[in-house]
């Protein structure tokens, strides 16, 4: 049979897949064993009954659940005294529409065959079995003996496979030749084709297959390409992208996590650690940068910054995404259903979902990222390079030391006994002041009666701010004082009195502000709210309809205790709301922020925030230094009983004493230096536990953020594995629960993923669903054996991969011995042949780049923007322009291609890559004309073809046949047969004569792409050879793994 007709037969059979699967099951009653609960009965009950009689208590009818035997007996539908007379059988047999089950309205009737299965099962005692995936992996899994002859057995995998084949009466396929195996394994482990030298070396290796193959695996495992290939698959799982998604879809700057990922596979991080780091790396003792960076996994979900969005709505959405992703990625369960109600099929309650969400929601984050600033949403990790970390640590230590000295001095002065001398000072001179006496009405504010009936004050309507253009925003390391008199006429949440910022949520509140929250003053200095900010809050409101003087002083320390609030000249007791400010509080053009340099102090209103409606302000004074308590009192005209501490602070700020002044000056200098240093260090979103008491989590009715129900703490679904009380009740505990030997899912799910990676199909085909609705494993014992073997070998992924790849099952030819096998088992569920399927999007493009020699083997770093059809981003309407890069960015591996969620790269999505908007553990595999068009016409492939053509012409001058032979071999790893060579020769001749007659066209074709070409080559020869290579790129073996 020729390759061509094989392809035809294979694909023609796809539509009858289902029939074939059914026919495997539909054996005659005589030769089939009694119905198995897991195999036969649970799928029926789950599909036809559980929606109304299953785990979900809210939709349960007649107080009957059929997912538990004791419950079914209690409800009286199973009769333990006489099973054959059970009510359930009467109901499924009935044709009375009021009696029959499932009811006609459910529209999922039972077939006669299904009814007889149920009858048989009930009559035999209605024995239940636990769902296979929820049974812990046995300590040892017996490996079957193979009694039949004719099976190559290289390791235990083959025994499991052979046992099943023998049962089905199928033969193992022949072992694939060495070249085929090498090509297959090279793509599986590195995503790249073997080079001719690698093929030759393997063919020349005189050792036995086992040793030679293991040597190849050693080489592949230790390559960077292996780490990249493993990371490639995980990017879909982690919904990795370079932009936030949603409407604005701005850049997310999360590629450092991708670098971590590659590195984790390069170092062969054991899978239990791989899971633990990503879930809880930040909480591990003495967490390293890598461990913390790994947790960015939980922050890769989409985020929005759309103006007007409600923060809590999206925060809830993000936390739910984390739960969903962890559920699908590690547990192989679809958690989504239980967000709104108890799962209808699997034993996961709605409470379980929110119990899990409590693990993931306890970080100091905001549901919206920023529109006007480019900062990573908090919590974020600074990514030091070179000696930055050491320098930063040193600076912070020096600052702490000096701060300690000053604090010590203040404390000892305050504790001293000698009578403080009355301080002497004049009225402090403001750097900026405004009494509004000459105020002209503008916007919606206007002059009003001044304080004490003198002159004017300013009265606000709340939509327009009075902007003090001369007052630049305060910086994190700058001491300052702002004082003013105000008279509110109403108390509302969040009324803005003054601020030096661009906006509220739309700039992550970056800047400084004084607001009245229902009349209570709140002062904040914010880099990114809430995780990078200091804020203090008074304990009582200011009076309405009366003038109050409010002064805010700040010492430049980035500490909440460095902020002071004075009411009518007297320091006001406050509570600390936030106390972690690590970065500057101004817009910085170098960070990509908008409006850097144009923000100033403003009064009475802020962009998309609550204005000081009906309020008045008078006598504003701004100082570029911290006023002492005595000065504030003086300025407010207050008579205060100054404490020793107040005196101490005054003396500290004004002391002529050289020692104190020097410490103060040094401190100021160091703080500025530290601020400059950290400003130059990028950061990435990570997980960081909120330091205060755990934030409450709630069951949300119908999943809606406004419909809070019962408060819940962190918990895990007990039906999978009870949570060991010795584990910490945080994400570390969650990781321990996941990676515990008794967790039935995590090891099976990853073993199944590795199998999928090698065979293109999981032992459980539904990688995303190991629950009742998922498919059962084709080889349950093999899956358990692989899971156990993985755990027994320290969760070493390479070990398991090696076991699979050296098995005879994997080593089979992708052509079965008997063509009828295709018909019986088109999906290769029974493993009667080796894998065969189209390569992934990344592999196809990388393959073309690799064979042409264009591939740039630089590992990691920011994403790149290679060729892309013009105008795609513009058309997507998010206001972004794709600026294609040049040089090596055009030839990096596809996993580095910039991924915009609202307009993902068509070179990838055409070949079934997902949008990366949510976790996807399995790609579809489709075959569409568009894919052929892409390979034929995308400049990336045309260029690769003409570059490979050029290389061949130059490497093999004169010998055209050898050139064609090599071209074929480079593209397929195999040597062409004589007829194949003749086809290529004919093609080359046809193209040569065509381009010979039209040299201009030849010139155009070989000018495709930006890579420099050798102008000395004959354009006709070059163009004709380019078409030959293009043909080979479209040749089935180029794009198909077999």
């Amino acid at each position, binding site marked *: 049979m020729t390759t061509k007709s094989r392809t035809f037969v294979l*694909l023609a059979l796809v539509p009858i897949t289902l029939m074939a699967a059914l026919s495997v099951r539909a054996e005659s009653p005589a030769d089939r064993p009694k119905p198995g609960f897991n195999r036969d009965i649970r799928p029926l009950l789950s599909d036809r009954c559980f929606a109304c009689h299953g785990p979900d208590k809210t939709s349960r009818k007649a107080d009957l659940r059929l997912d538990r035997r004791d419950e079914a007996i209690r409800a009286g539908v199973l009769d333990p005294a006489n099973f054959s007379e059970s009510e359930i059988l009467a109901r499924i047999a009935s044709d009375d529409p009021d009696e029959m089950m499932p009811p006609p309205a459910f529209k999922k009737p039972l077939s006669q065959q299904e009814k007889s299965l149920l009858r048989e099962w009930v009559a035999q005692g209605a024995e239940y079995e636990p769902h296979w995936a929820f049974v812990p992996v046995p300590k040892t899994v017996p490996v079957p003996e193979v009694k039949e002859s004719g099976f190559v057995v290289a390791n235990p995998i083959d025994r499991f496979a052979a046992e099943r084949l023998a049962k089905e009466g199928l033969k193992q396929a022949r072992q694939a030749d060495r070249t085929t195996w090498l090509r297959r394994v090279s793509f599986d482990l590195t995503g790249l084709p073997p080079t001719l030298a690698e093929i030759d070396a393997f063919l020349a290796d005189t050792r036995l297959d086992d040793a030679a193959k293991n040597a190849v695996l050693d080489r592949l495992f230790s390559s960077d390409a292996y780490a990249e290939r493993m990371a490639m698959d995980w990017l879909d799982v982690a919904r990795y992208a370079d932009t936030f998604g949603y*409407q604005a879809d701005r850049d997310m700057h999360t590629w450092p996590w991708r670098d971590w990922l590659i590195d984790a596979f390069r170092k062969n991080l054991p899978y239990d650690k791989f899971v633990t780091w990503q879930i809880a790396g930040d909480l591990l003792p003495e967490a390293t940068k890598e461990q913390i960076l790994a947790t960015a996994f939980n922050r890769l979900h989409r985020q929005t910054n759309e103006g007007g969005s409600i923060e809590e709505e999206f925060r809830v959405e993000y936390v739910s995404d984390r739960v969903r992703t962890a559920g699908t990625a590690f547990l192989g369960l679809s958690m989504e259903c239980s967000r709104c109600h108890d799962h209808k099929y699997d034993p996961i309650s709605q409470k379980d979902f929110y119990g899990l969400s409590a693990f993931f929601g306890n970080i100091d984050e905001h549901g919206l990222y920023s529109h006007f600033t480019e900062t990573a949403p908090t919590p974020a990790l600074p990514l030091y390079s070179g000696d930055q970390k050491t320098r930063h640590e040193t600076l912070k230590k020096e600052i702490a030391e000096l701060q300690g000295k000053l604090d010590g001095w203040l404390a000892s002065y305050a504790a001293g006994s000698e009578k403080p001398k009355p301080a002497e000072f004049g009225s402090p001179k403001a750097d900026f002041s405004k009494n509004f006496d000459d105020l002209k009405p503008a916007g919606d504010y206007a002059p009003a009666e001044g304080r004490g009936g003198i002159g004017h004050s300013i009265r606000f309507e709340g939509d327009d701010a009075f902007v003090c253009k001369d007052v630049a925003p305060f910086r994190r390391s700058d001491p300052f004082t702002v004082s003013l008199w105000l008279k509110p006429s109403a108390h509302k949440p969040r009324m803005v009195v003054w601020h030096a910022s661009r906006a509220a949520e739309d700039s992550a509140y970056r800047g400084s502000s004084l607001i009245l929250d229902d009349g209570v003053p709140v002062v904040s200095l914010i880099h990114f709210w809430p995780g990078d900010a200091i804020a203090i809050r008074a304990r009582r409101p200011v009076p309405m309809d009366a003038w109050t003087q409010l002064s805010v002083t700040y010492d430049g320390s980035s500490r909440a205790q460095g902020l002071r609030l004075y009411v009518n000249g007297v320091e006001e007791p406050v509570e600390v709301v936030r106390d972690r400010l690590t970065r500057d509080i101004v817009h910085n053009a170098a960070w990509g922020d908008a409006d850097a340099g144009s923000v100033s102090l403003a009064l009475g209103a802020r962009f998309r925030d609550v204005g000081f409606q009906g309020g008045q302000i008078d006598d504003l004074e701004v100082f570029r230094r911290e006023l002492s308590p005595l000065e504030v009192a003086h300025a407010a005209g207050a008579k205060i009983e100054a404490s020793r501490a107040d005196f101490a602070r005054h003396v500290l700020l004004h002391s002529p004493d050289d020692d104190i002044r020097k410490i103060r000056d040094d401190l100021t200098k160091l703080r500025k230096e530290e601020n400059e240093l950290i400003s130059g260090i990028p950061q990435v979103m990570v997980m960081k536990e909120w330091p205060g008491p755990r934030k409450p989590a709630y069951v949300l009715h119908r999943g809606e953020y406004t419909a809070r129900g019962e408060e819940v703490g962190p918990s895990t679904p007990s039906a999978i594995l009870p949570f060991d009380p010795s584990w910490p009740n945080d994400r570390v505990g969650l990781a321990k629960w996941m990676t515990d030997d008794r967790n039935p899912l995590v090891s099976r799910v990853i073993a199944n993923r590795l199998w999928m990676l090698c065979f293109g199909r999981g032992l459980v085909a539904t990688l995303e669903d190991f629950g009742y609705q998922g498919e059962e494993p084709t080889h349950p014992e093999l899956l358990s054996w692989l899971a156990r073997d993985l755990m027994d070998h320290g969760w070493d992924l390479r070990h398991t991969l090696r076991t699979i790849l050296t098995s005879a099952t994997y080593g089979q030819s992708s052509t079965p011995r008997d063509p009828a096998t295709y018909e019986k088992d088109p999906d290769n569920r029974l493993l009667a042949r080796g894998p065969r399927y189209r390569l992934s999007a990344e592999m196809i493009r990388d393959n073309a780049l690799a064979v042409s020699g264009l591939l740039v083997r630089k590992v990691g770093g920011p994403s790149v923007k290679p060729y892309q*059809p013009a105008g795609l981003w513009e058309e997507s309407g998010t206001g972004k322009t794709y600026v294609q890069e040049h040089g090596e960015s055009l030839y990096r591996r596809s996993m580095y291609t910039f991924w915009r969620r609202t307009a993902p790269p068509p070179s990838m999505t055409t070949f079934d890559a997902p949008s990366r908007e949510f976790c996807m553990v399995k790609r579809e595999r489709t075959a569409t004309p568009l894919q052929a068009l892409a390979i*034929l016409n995308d400049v990336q492939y045309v260029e690769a073809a003409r570059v490979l053509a050029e290389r061949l012409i130059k490497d093999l001058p004169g010998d055209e046949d050898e050139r064609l032979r090599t071209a074929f071999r480079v593209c397929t790893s195999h040597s062409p047969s004589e007829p194949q060579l003749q086809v290529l020769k004919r093609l080359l001749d046809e193209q040569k004569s065509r381009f010979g007659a039209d040299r201009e*066209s030849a010139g155009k074709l070989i*000018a495709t792409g930006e890579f420099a070409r050798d102008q000395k080559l004959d354009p006709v020869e070059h163009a004709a050879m380019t078409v030959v290579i293009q043909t080979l790129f479209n*040749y089935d073996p180029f794009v198909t793994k077999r």
Partner: protein
Amino acid sequence: MSETNRTGCCGIEATAGLSRRQMLGRFAHGIGGIALADLMRANAHAATGTPGALGVLHHPPKIKRVISLFQSGGPSHLETFDYKPLLKKMEGQDLPASVRMGQRLTGMSGYQARLPLVGSFTGFRQHGPSGAWISDLLPHTARIADKICVIRSLHSEAINHDPAITFLQTGFQIAGRPSIGSWLSYGLGSENEDLPTFVVLITKGKGGQPLYSRLWGSGFLPSRHQGVQFRASAEPVLYLNNPAGVDSASRRSMLDRLRDLH
């Protein structure tokens, strides 16, 4: 939010007028190895096309195609089909609690000092025997008032563009569900195997419409049901044009040899 009948972004392309041969012919110059195999598969049931999940419909469909215009960023319903005289009468007054009924406000308007009502700036008149109210801005549409059906009862709980549009196109405001066109493709099937059942055209221009490919995505349905975007450019379908210097004769010879190779 009230909407008119522009509810979906789907367009089921009827292909009744095209023979299978024509369909194949249309793509024939650009079919390589993969597509070739895909098309050959189609021979198996060329006569039937792709049946939909619904199988036989309970009544014969009267329409051949659905063209749906989703005018993201288009004129408001208040200036087109949704006549609200009371709103005009109460212009300038604050939004009454009886209307708002505690509905949440967006961060855009939620902090405004006031929430005043603003009526339509255009006049409305009744047209045709049906007496449909249509804005004076649409004189031509008004003349066919009796040929159109206006639905004013659609609404969404979402208050931001992205979730609201996602809801309109997929029935759910969280991304990941199939779009309406995908459902139609899935349910009704197609009379052919090769042309997309669901195509999408978006406005030509400089990013006027924030529309994301997810809005015509197939969600959890097989990806063949996802909308195929036709672009307003020289290359309506990505990668359709031959590379520079390659004409259709050259392509033909190449594809013939490719077939020989297979």
